[in-house]
């Protein structure tokens, strides 16, 4: 896979283009225009950027007020602060009040690496999945990021979109169809399917390549929309494949894995199943790559998890 740009940059480029076309588009930042790659946006469209300062609760509340008048509002802040510090504003002023603010969580997951747990967002899927009336999109690559931002512009529901800040490989062909709420099937396999979200998808694809080299039939789904979950795609994967493994840069609690497991169990399907994410412990310190490697969220680690699950279930 060819390396693309950071999704963050694609987000910023897309937003600038949309902002130039739609003068009612506003970006609201909390001293985060630098980390959000929005300096150029601020220079080119100074009337369309609202600076709040380091005050995330106010950032989300003001965004709700602006959007209630019909403005198309993108509230941009590091995912960790946006979804924890201002959780009640998201719950009440955006979701409950039914105001379609686009909440953009940047530098998500463990993107901040050695800055530590204060800056990591491993709770955001779980927290927001439990809030009524907000949808969650987690793009895998530059293509999904651009499509997600474009689709968000007139999206009628409150929306949370989160991505990281490192360059990611291109996962999709640009002609791929993208629709919020509809998973993208990258590969089909009968032994195991990885259902992955966000910037773990390319790792799942690489794991799949390794497994196929070892004679294991492997599928990959990019579950870019966590909520509403594409249940049909999960069901199909569980019927096509004997083993299901979910992958996310998030706590193993309350995210993609739990969503899929909960759905499949209630459908009466109980494939061998593993949730790969960040475990509930005092998390190891290091760079993003080091942390993900430690927890097995690498092509090799994912392939190993798949083999473990396949061979435990079918001893040779």
């Amino acid at each position: 896979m060819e390396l693309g740009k950071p999704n963050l940059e694609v987000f910023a480029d897309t937003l600038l283009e949309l902002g130039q076309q739609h003068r009612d588009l506003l970006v609201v930042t909390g001293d985060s225009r630098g980390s959000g790659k929005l300096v150029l946006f601020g220079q080119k469209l100074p009337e369309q950027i609202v600076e709040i300062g380091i005050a995330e609760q106010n950032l989300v509340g003001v965004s709700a007020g602006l959007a209630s008048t019909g403005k198309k509002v993108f509230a941009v802040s590091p995912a960790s602060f946006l979804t924890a510090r201002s959780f009640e504003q998201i719950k009440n002023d955006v979701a409950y009040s039914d105001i379609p603010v686009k909440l953009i969580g940047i530098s998500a997951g463990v993107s901040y690496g050695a800055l530590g747990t204060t800056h990591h967002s491993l709770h955001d899927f779980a927290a927001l999945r439990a809030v009524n009336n907000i949808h969650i999109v987690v793009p895998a690559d530059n293509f999904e990021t651009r499509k997600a931002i474009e689709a968000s512009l007139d999206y009628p529901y409150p929306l949370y979109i989160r991505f990281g800040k490192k360059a990611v490989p291109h996962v999709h062909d640009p002609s791929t169809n993208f629709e919020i709420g509809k998973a993208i099937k990258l590969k089909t396999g009968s032994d195991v399917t990885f259902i992955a979200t966000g910037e773990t998808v390319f790792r799942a694809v690489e794991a799949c390549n390794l497994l196929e080299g070892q004679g294991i039939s492997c599928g990959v789904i990019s579950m870019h929309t966590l909520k509403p979950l594409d249940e049909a795609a999960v069901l199909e994967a569980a019927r096509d494949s004997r083993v299901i493994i979910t992958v996310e840069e998030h706590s193993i609690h309350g995210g993609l894995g739990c969503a899929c497991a909960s759905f499949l169990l209630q459908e009466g399907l109980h494939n061998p199943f593993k949730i790969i994410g960040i475990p509930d412990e005092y998390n190891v310190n290091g760079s993003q790559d080091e942390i993900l490697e430690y927890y097995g969220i690498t092509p090799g680690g994912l392939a190993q998890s798949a083999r473990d699950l396949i061979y435990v279930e079918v001893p040779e």
Partner: protein
Amino acid sequence: MEIQELERKSIQYRKAILSIIKKANAGHTGGDLSCVEILNVLYNHVMNVSPENFTDPNRDRYIQSKGHSVETLFTVLADKGFYPEEELDTLNQFQSHFIGHPTRKVNGVEHNTGALGHGLSVSVGIALAGKKNGLSYRVYTLLGDGELEEGSNWEASMSAAHYKLDNLVVIIDRNTLQITGRTEEVSQLEPLSDKFKAFGYAVRETDGNDLAALVQVFGQIPFEKGKPSLILAHTTKGKGISFIEDQVSWHHHTPTDQEFVVAMTELQQAEEAWQVQYGTR
């Protein structure tokens, strides 16, 4: 509307508020009664908002950050014709949208509130949008004094001043009581006026239960060009009913049958006194 007409409305609103609280056997009686004059003056004298213009982008906005005083808001909105008054009989009933805090499911309500410390940020956003769109509407938001303990209000205040939102009007229902006791004993707020001035507001203090004083102070908005206006409205919690006034126990106490009769009798006497003074018989 003439002051004397507003005076009569205040009495009638208090009757309606107590009646729906009594019927639902729930409500924030004390805080409801302290802000009756503020909502009365806003909706009947100051704001350009009605059922007819409620979708007009240039309507004035009212955001009730102290959402628990919802019985007053619902009563005033019914009087303004946003819905039939009888609908308030469903307050707190299963499947009713008339619940213990404002929601946009009720016609006339601009924003869902109830958790404290939210309304001011939302109001800042609406006021900022008004500036950006070149519209002349104003945004009025009512905060409780106890609510000021929420830090988010001070974040929002910084933005209000930073963006020079002189189309924003913040009203503080300064009744000096919160559920636990005196605000000054729970968490010191004073010197409140100085704090607001330091945060960049143009501040006026007034008697928040005096209709003429409120009409006068609202008539001076904006107090200063380029600054958000703030009215520190000194009120009495439970205003208008002798045994409810300034009693911490009435934060969300609801009247017994006997208390209800006494309260309604007091209001009836007030209305009769109004008739004697102004009425045509």
